[in-house]
Each structure stands twice: as structure tokens, then as C-alpha cells.
């Protein structure tokens, strides 16, 4: 055997040396080597390697760029051309793929944009990392209740006692002002605006952009106010030179003349808090000192900026019992058990993680973010599966191509590259279509989700779109690439499909998977829809129809009573009354009720609803026992009405006529109201009592059915007569009620679309598969027909396979969807039962849709004349 030259040196030479030189050089080198080898092996080897290295010089090195890439470019162009020819030739499957992938991608993109928007809520703040809000867990009979409200002195005490905290500020947010906007006026101009009350340090915590400010501090005195640039423009038509101007503010809780000390940029849309005015917290602290300066009460929010590097866990431990300690020092141990514990939550987290159960963070908006992300992925998978199925199914058409390529010397890698390239091109095209679809649908999508998302092509968005496209392309191309490149050239050229037994199974499995997902989505839509319907039509314990409400505000020159009487006399008005709260979650609360037989350690939180005369009748709240308030029968100040839940909780028997103590004052129970819902269906009806006060802040008017429009105009005219300067803002009770379930309605609306798309895309895939199978079995069908098979027989033959697949999908999907929907319904205290027909109807629906899809194709094929398909061979 001949000695062989050093392997590595030779490989190196072959790698760098010009192709037209290599043979000569390698030959000469080998010859020299062989001759020298006889004398000294080691020397020969050394010499050989050294010589090779000496060739590594310009003139002998091949030019890598041109020679290498011409081949790649050529292959690329070749693949590109083939792909386009394939698209052109098989337009059907091309369009099925295009529609499937682009709808999948469009949904994924829309969901991505939405998720992106949700996740970035509040994240723009400069100190985001260190910005925390103090929350409180207040012990109640049903376990701890988590609130934003904290004692009014917490912020200033914390900053004094905790060195970890850089800045702290109390803030009374706009939601605290009973959700009613105040009115701001300058001369004869009036606007409604949202206010917050903050401390000086607030501006060090939140990085709101202050556009203009005086020389002084931002909040130098009680009457200082900062306004937003938007409000400034509305009030003064400019933002400059308004420092020092005076505005008048009127609100139920506080009013007065304030001077402007600064102008800030209105918080952007991705801020969870929105406000137009910032007042000085000191104002309220002085006005409401009893409440705010006492450690027994909670109200304002507390925001903190912790120092960099602070261990939040440790700080959490430190402040947990902070309020308790202060309370104990101030009051002693009385009612200490009702004082809450404190903890920190990152400010920007509370938008997504806003739901607490028993004092523990549990879900919130993040649930929907996750849910929709999963749906997006599934929709993409469905689209990708279509591509996989169609391209592997059509493999037979390309068998000769693959066979010849392999014979000529194409490696498996090259073929995989070709098929992956094909799927990439497909997804790239689809993503362009998808972007178009997104651009078209975005306004509609924004309307459903209540967002202001724009399709901006920032670096982040573009890279995400590219990433989604790339992954989808790789995924949808992976199976065809693996499968098609594995075919053996001999059998493919013979025209035989060498399916190993696994292949059709995978394809069937994919179809089943598609239908499972579609089915789960359809069932979910049905259930969500039913639940929302249930909520909206359920007997709430009161009648919300045709009742409008507006806020008592501005100057009512005639006085409250005359105003109400006049209102009642407007034609079309059935009844009018006033209410201190609303029926969608706003109510007072207290535990300070003492009744006969109350155990010393027993504490029940009662909802406190303040109603005017006639309101119970107007809302048609049923009285189980006793009577409702009446002007004729005794002083309302000493009377009270409980709901059934309250009576049951207190364990009173024969309650009518008994007296209880509320806030230390004796009240006579005059009636028991049937339970009615005064907050959302997520909550059970809680114990509550109704007190009677005349002339409360919300005016409710019941309008005669069928006369809404003209009556509304009359009420508006009447309102304007008394409040010349104020815009007439009113709401209908059922609108409020709808708003309570805005999130569910969004989910239901969106999932309806997504379920529709899922089933559409799945059926597209099925359609493509059926068309393909029918085509391949055309000859068989021809022969069967010649031998006397009926059309029906052929339809059965062709659709049997697919029916089985869909049936398997149904069998898998229904139990799964049962679990999913049951889990969702658990969120509601009042919910529908999962009826069998939800599942059966969803199953039948899917089966029918699949049959229609398959049927269109099979009937066409079954009708074909045998001569047509048998004439050529």
C-alpha cells in the first residue's frame, strides 16, 4: 500500500487551492512526498505540510466569493423558479395555503400587537423598576380583601422611618372622587375634568413631563394646581404663559379657586391612570383631617420610589404590620383585628396582575393576555398544518423531480433546503398579505378591544413580525422537508410512492389536531356567549330597563325638591328619584352594625346603599317582608331596610319591627328586600342595607317605554334650563351594566372571530386534501363507475375517511373543551350549567361543515363520466 500524505495538510490544500491548479500541484506534491517517504517518513510529512503552506499565497488561492456564490445563487434561483412554477401550476393549493397562512398570521399579528400593548402598559415610566404602590389586605368575614386604599399619613410616615424609600407620595386618584368628574371653569367656559391630588414628591416618583412651571415649587400651597396641556389648550387655547392664572373648580368633595403652577403633558394612552388636573394633597388633608390623619381609616393611594438595589422582599416584611403598629400606638388593641396588613406591588404590574383573591394575587388581565397568545399560536399551527398536509400529499406529483435531482447528485440537505425555501417563500408572501389584512382590520379590532393600537413599523415590531414569519415558515416547512427529502430515488422514479406506514397517519393526525382546536374554540364561544346572555337577561332583582341617570351638579337655582318635582312632571317621565351609589359595584360599606344576639367577635361587612323615596319602587326591588320607605310613615332617619342575605347573615328571625344599632344609632327594620345584584356576577350577593336620604347625587329617571327619544330631549332642555353652562351627560342603567362585562364581551366578540377563522382554515385544508385524494383516485372511481357503482357509493367511499377523522377529533375535543369551559365558568358566582347540547351542537356543526366541504368536492368527482377519466393513459 502506498503511503498517504498528511491528511490534514491535503485537505487544507484542496480547500484553498485554485481548481485549475490543484491537480498538478497535488500530483507533484504527492510524487515528491512518495520519493522522500522512502528515506524518511517524518521528514517527508513535514516537508509536505511545509510545501502546502508555501502555496498559501495570492495566485494560488481560489477566489472564494465568486466561485462559491455563483453556485449558491444559481441553486437559489433554480429553487425560486421551481417554487413559482409550482405556485402557478397548482393554483388551488397555492391559494389554500396563502389564505390559511395569511389569516393565521394576521390573527397572530393582531394578537401580538394587542399583547404588546397590554404588556407595555405603564412600562414607559422612567423609574418603572423602582416604582411601587402600597396595597392593603383588609380582613373581612370572607377572607382578606385587597384594596389600593391606605391610611392618609402612610406616605409621609414611611419616608421618615424607612431608609430604603427615596420618595413617597399619597395620592387621591380620580376613582376616589366617586368616579364623578368635577367641573372646571374660567369665566363662562366650563369643562368636566378628572382630578388627582398628590404631594410634591409625586413628581419625583412619576416621570410625567412638566412642560411649563413657575419659578417656585410645583405645589407651593394648598391652592396650587397643575393642568394638562390638553386642558390648557381647551381653556386658554395655548399652553404658554398661563402660570399664575386662576381657575374655579367645583366638585362634590371640594371646590374653590386655584392658581395654576404648572402644565404637564397629558399621560399617554398606555398609562393606566388618566387625569387632567393635579391638586395639592394638603388641601384634602386639612379638610378631611379626621379621616385622613387617623390610622384607623384608609383612603388615598400610596406610591413609593425605593432606592436602587433595595430588597423588595425584605421591605415587604418590614411594612407588613406597619399600619397595625401605628394603630396600636394610637388607639390600643380595640378593633385591631380589622386593621389590614400592607404589601408592595410594582406599579407597572398592577395593570396586568390586578385581581386578588383572599389577599393573594390571582390572574387579572394577564389571563386574557395568556389566553389570546395561546389562541394565536394555535391559529398559526392550523395554517401551517394545511401547508404541511398539502405539500406532502402533493409529493407524488413531484416524485420525478425529486428522483432526478437525487440521481444527479442532490444531497438530502439540498432538497431539504429547497423545500424549506419553498415554505419560507410561502410564509413571506402570506405575511405580506397578513400585514395588509391587519392594516385593514385594525380600526375594527381597536373598536372591539377598546384600544388605540397603531401599526407602526418600529424595530421591535418588524423584528417580531420577521420572527413570527420565520418560525412559521420553518415549522410548516419542516415536515415536508424531512419527508420529501427522504424518498428513495429508485422507487420514486418508478412512480411508486414509498410511504412507510407512518406517513398517512401523521397527516391524518394533523387534520384531527386542527379540528380538535377548532372544536374547542367553537365550544368556548358558545359557552361564553351563553354566559353573557345569561348575565344580561337574568333577573337581577331589579328592573334596569328604561332608566337613565345623570349626576346632580352645577347650580340648581330652584332647590333640590322643586327640581325633582319639575322633573317628575315632564311628559314621558314615569318616575324620578335619587341614589347615592350605582348598581354596578359602587356602594359604601361598614361593619358597624350591632344587632340582638351578635357575638362579640362576629363581624359582617354590609353594603351601604343610600336611596331616596320611591327608588325601591322605581327599580322594582321586591320586598319580601315589611314595607319600603314612605314620606308619610315616620322619620326615615330611624328606619332601615336589609336584604335577605343580611338577615340570613345576622340570623334574625321575624326582623320586621326589631331595632339594630348602626354607627351607634338605633334603627328600626321596616322591611326586607329580596336579594338584588348591586355588583358584578363575579360576586355573590352580599349582605346590604338601604338607608333613606332625600336628594342624593345621582338622579335616576324612569322613562315610559317607547317614548325614550322625545322624553330625553325634554329632559335635556329642562336640564339646560337649570344648568346653563354644563353639558348634559347621562347614561342608561343597562349601559352601565353592559360596561361591567366589557372584558367578557370583548372576549366573546374576539373568540367568535377566532373560532370562525379556525374552522374556516381547517376546512380549507380539508378541502385541499379531498380535492387531492379525489384526483389521485380518479381512475379508480372511473373503473368503479364502469363496474356499476352508484354516485352515492362513491361519495360514501371518498368522504368516509374524512368523516372518521372528524369524528375522532370530536371525541378528543369535547372532553377537553368541557374542562376548559368549566374552568372559565368557575370565575362567576352566578353561572350557567354546562348543558350537553353545547357540546353536541358544536360537534354536529363541525361535522356538517366538514361534510359540506368534502361533499362539494366528492359530488363533483362522483359525477364525472368514466370515459373522461379513463380515456388517456
Amino acid at each position, binding site marked *: 500500500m502506498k503511503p498517504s500524505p498528511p491528511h490534514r495538510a491535503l485537505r487544507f490544500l484542496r480547500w484553498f487551492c485554485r481548481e485549475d491548479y490543484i*491537480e*498538478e500541484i497535488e500530483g*507533484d*506534491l504527492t510524487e*515528491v512526498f512518495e*520519493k522522500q517517504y522512502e528515506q524518511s517518513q517524518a521528514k517527508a510529512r513535514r516537508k509536505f505540510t511545509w510545501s502546502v503552506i508555501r*502555496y498559501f499565497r495570492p*495566485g494560488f488561492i481560489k477566489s472564494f466569493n465568486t466561485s462559491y456564490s455563483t453556485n449558491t445563487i444559481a441553486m437559489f434561483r433554480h429553487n425560486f423558479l421551481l417554487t413559482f412554477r409550482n405556485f402557478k401550476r397548482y393554483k388551488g393549493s397555492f391559494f389554500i395555503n396563502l389564505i390559511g397562512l395569511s389569516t393565521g398570521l394576521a390573527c397572530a399579528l393582531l394578537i401580538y400587537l394587542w399583547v404588546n400593548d397590554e404588556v407595555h402598559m405603564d412600562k414607559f415610566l422612567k423609574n418603572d423598576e423602582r416604582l411601587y404602590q402600597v396595597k392593603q389586605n383588609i380582613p373581612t368575614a370572607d377572607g382578606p380583601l385587597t384594596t389600593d386604599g391606605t391610611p392618609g399619613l402612610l406616605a409621609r410616615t414611611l419616608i421618615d422611618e424607612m431608609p430604603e424609600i427615596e420618595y413617597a407620595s399619597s395620592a387621591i386618584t380620580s376613582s376616589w372622587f366617586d368616579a364623578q368628574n368635577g367641573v372646571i371653569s374660567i369665566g363662562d367656559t366650563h369643562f368636566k375634568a378628572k382630578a388627582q391630588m398628590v404631594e410634591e414628591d409625586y413628581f419625583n416618583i412619576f416621570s410625567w413631563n412638566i412642560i411649563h412651571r413657575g419659578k417656585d415649587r410645583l405645589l407651593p400651597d394648598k391652592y396650587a394646581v397643575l393642568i394638562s396641556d390638553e386642558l390648557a389648550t381647551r381653556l386658554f387655547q395655548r399652553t404658554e404663559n398661563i402660570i399664575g392664572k386662576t381657575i374655579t373648580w367645583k366638585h362634590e368633595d371640594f371646590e374653590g379657586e386655584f392658581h395654576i403652577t404648572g402644565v404637564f403633558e397629558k399621560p399617554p394612552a398606555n398609562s393606566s391612570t388618566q387625569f387632567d388636573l393635579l391638586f395639592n394633597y394638603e388641601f384634602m388633608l386639612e379638610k378631611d383631617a379626621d379621616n385622613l390623619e387617623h390610622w384607623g381609616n384608609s383612603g388615598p393611594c400610596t406610591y413609593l420610589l425605593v432606592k436602587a438595589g433595595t430588597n423588595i422582599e425584605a421591605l415587604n416584611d418590614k411594612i407588613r404590620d406597619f399600619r397595625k403598629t401605628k394603630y396600636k400606638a394610637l388607639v390600643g388593641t380595640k378593633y385591631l383585628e380589622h386593621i389590614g396588613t400592607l404589601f408592595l406591588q410594582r406599579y407597572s404590574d398592577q395593570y396586568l396582575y390586578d385581581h386578588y383573591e383572599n389577599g393573594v394575587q390571582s390572574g387579572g388581565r394577564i389571563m386574557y393576555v395568556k389566553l389570546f397568545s395561546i389562541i394565536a399560536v394555535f391559529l398559526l399551527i392550523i395554517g401551517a398544518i394545511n401547508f404541511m398536509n398539502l405539500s406532502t400529499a402533493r409529493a407524488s406529483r413531484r416524485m420525478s423531480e425529486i428522483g432526478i435531482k437525487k440521481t444527479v447528485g442532490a444531497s438530502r440537505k439540498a432538497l431539504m433546503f429547497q423545500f424549506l425555501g419553498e415554505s419560507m417563500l410561502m410564509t413571506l408572501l402570506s405575511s405580506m398579505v397578513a400585514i395588509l389584512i391587519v392594516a385593514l382590520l385594525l380600526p375594527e379590532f381597536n373598536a372591539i378591544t377598546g384600544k388605540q393600537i397603531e401599526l407602526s413599523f418600529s424595530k421591535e415590531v418588524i423584528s417580531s413580525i420577521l420572527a413570527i414569519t420565520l418560525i412559521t415558515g420553518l415549522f410548516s416547512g419542516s415536515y415536508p422537508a424531512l419527508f420529501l427529502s427522504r424518498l428513495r430515488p429508485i422507487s420514486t422514479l418508478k412512480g411508486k410512492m414509498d410511504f412507510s406506514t407512518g406517513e398517512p397517519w401523521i397527516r391524518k393526525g394533523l387534520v384531527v389536531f386542527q379540528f380538535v382546536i377548532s372544536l374547542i374554540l367553537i365550544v368556548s364561544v358558545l359557552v361564553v356567549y351563553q354566559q353573557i346572555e345569561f348575565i344580561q337577561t337574568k333577573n337581577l332583582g331589579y328592573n334596569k330597563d328604561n332608566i337613565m341617570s345623570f349626576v346632580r351638579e352645577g347650580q340648581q337655582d330652584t332647590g333640590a325638591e322643586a327640581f325633582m318635582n319639575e322633573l317628575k312632571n315632564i311628559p314621558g317621565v314615569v318616575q324620578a328619584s335619587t341614589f347615592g351609589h350605582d348598581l354596578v359595584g359602587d356602594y359604601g360599606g361598614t361593619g358597624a352594625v350591632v344587632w340582638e344576639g351578635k357575638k362579640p367577635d362576629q363581624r359582617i361587612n354590609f353594603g351601604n346603599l343610600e336611596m331616596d323615596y320611591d327608588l325601591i319602587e322605581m327599580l322594582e326591588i321586591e320586598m319580601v317582608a315589611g314595607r319600603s320607605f314612605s314620606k308619610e310613615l315616620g322619620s326615615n332617619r330611624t328606619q332601615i331596610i336589609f336584604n335577605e342575605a343580611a338577615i340570613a347573615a345576622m340570623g334574625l328571625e321575624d326582623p320586621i319591627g326589631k331595632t339594630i344599632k348602626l354607627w351607634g344609632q338605633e334603627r328600626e327594620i321596616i322591611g326586607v328586600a329580596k336579594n338584588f345584584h348591586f355588583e358584578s356576577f363575579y360576586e355573590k350577593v352580599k349582605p346590604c342595607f338601604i338607608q333613606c336620604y332625600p336628594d342624593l347625587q345621582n338622579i335616576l329617571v324612569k322613562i315610559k317605554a317607547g317614548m325614550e327619544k322625545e322624553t330625553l330631549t325634554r329632559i335635556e332642555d329642562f336640564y339646560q334650563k337649570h344648568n346653563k353652562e354644563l353639558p348634559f351627560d347621562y347614561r342608561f342603567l343597562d349601559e352601565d351594566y353592559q360596561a361591567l362585562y366589557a372584558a367578557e364581551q370583548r372576549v366573546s366578540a374576539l373568540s367568535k372571530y377566532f373560532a370562525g377563522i379556525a374552522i374556516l382554515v381547517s376546512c380549507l385544508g380539508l378541502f385541499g386534501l379531498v380535492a387531492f385524494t379525489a384526483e389521485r383516485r380518479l381512475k379508480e372511481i372511473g373503473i368503479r363507475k364502469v363496474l356499476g357503482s352508484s354516485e352515492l357509493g362513491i361519495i360514501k367511499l371518498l368522504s368516509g375517511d374524512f368523516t372518521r377523522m372528524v369524528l375522532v377529533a370530536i371525541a378528543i375535543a369535547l372532553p377537553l373543551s368541557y374542562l376548559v369551559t368549566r374552568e372559565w365558568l368557575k370565575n362567576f358566582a352566578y353561572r350557567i350549567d354546562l348543558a350537553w347540547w353545547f357540546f353536541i351542537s358544536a360537534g354536529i356543526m363541525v361535522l356538517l361543515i366538514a361534510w359540506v366541504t368534502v361533499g362539494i368536492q366528492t359530488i363533483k368527482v362522483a359525477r364525472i363520466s368514466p370515459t373522461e377519466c379513463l380515456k388517456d393513459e
Partner: protein
Amino acid sequence: MIEHSLGEFEELVLLMVAAHHDEAYGVLILENLEEKLGKKINISAIHVALKRMENKGFVKSRFGGITNERGGRRKKFYAITALGKRVLDNQYALRTSIYQQIPKISFS
């Protein structure tokens, strides 16, 4: 532009190519030169010279047949071209004419 200059080592290689007309290939040239000069030369130097001269048009080349020798690689045979011969002649004439101008001095 292809210059007609000829380096010293190139001249030696060219001479060797001319001497073994149409039978000269890398290793043969190498061995003969080594023998004549009495020193070791790296084969790469020969190739560099050959390729340069081929570019200048002094030599032309052809592949030989496949044999079992040399790892199955073909030999590349070089032959001098007319231009190469003329350059060689010029060089020779130039040197001879200058040589003859040397006065007859005794160096003893």
C-alpha cells in the same frame, strides 16, 4: 500588461523546460535543478515560476494521462513557446555579448 522580463530563477526553470521539451513537469524540473545547482529547492518555488511564465506566455502546458502514480493525479507537462525561446535567446545573446567584452586579464 505582461512584461517580457525574466528573473534569474525563472530563467533556470525556463531553460529546464526547454531542455526537456514537452516532457518537463514539476517534479522533473525540481530534481534536475536540484542536481545541477546542488541545493534543495521547494517544489512550490518551481510552480510559482511556471505559473508566472505561463501567464507571460513563455511556456504552455498540457495534461498527461491518468496513471496509478501520484495518487491518481495527472501530470502537467510544460513546453516552451516561440516567445519563450526568443526571450531565452535574447537573454543568452545579451549575456554572451557582454561576456565577450571582458578584457583578457590574467587573474592569477
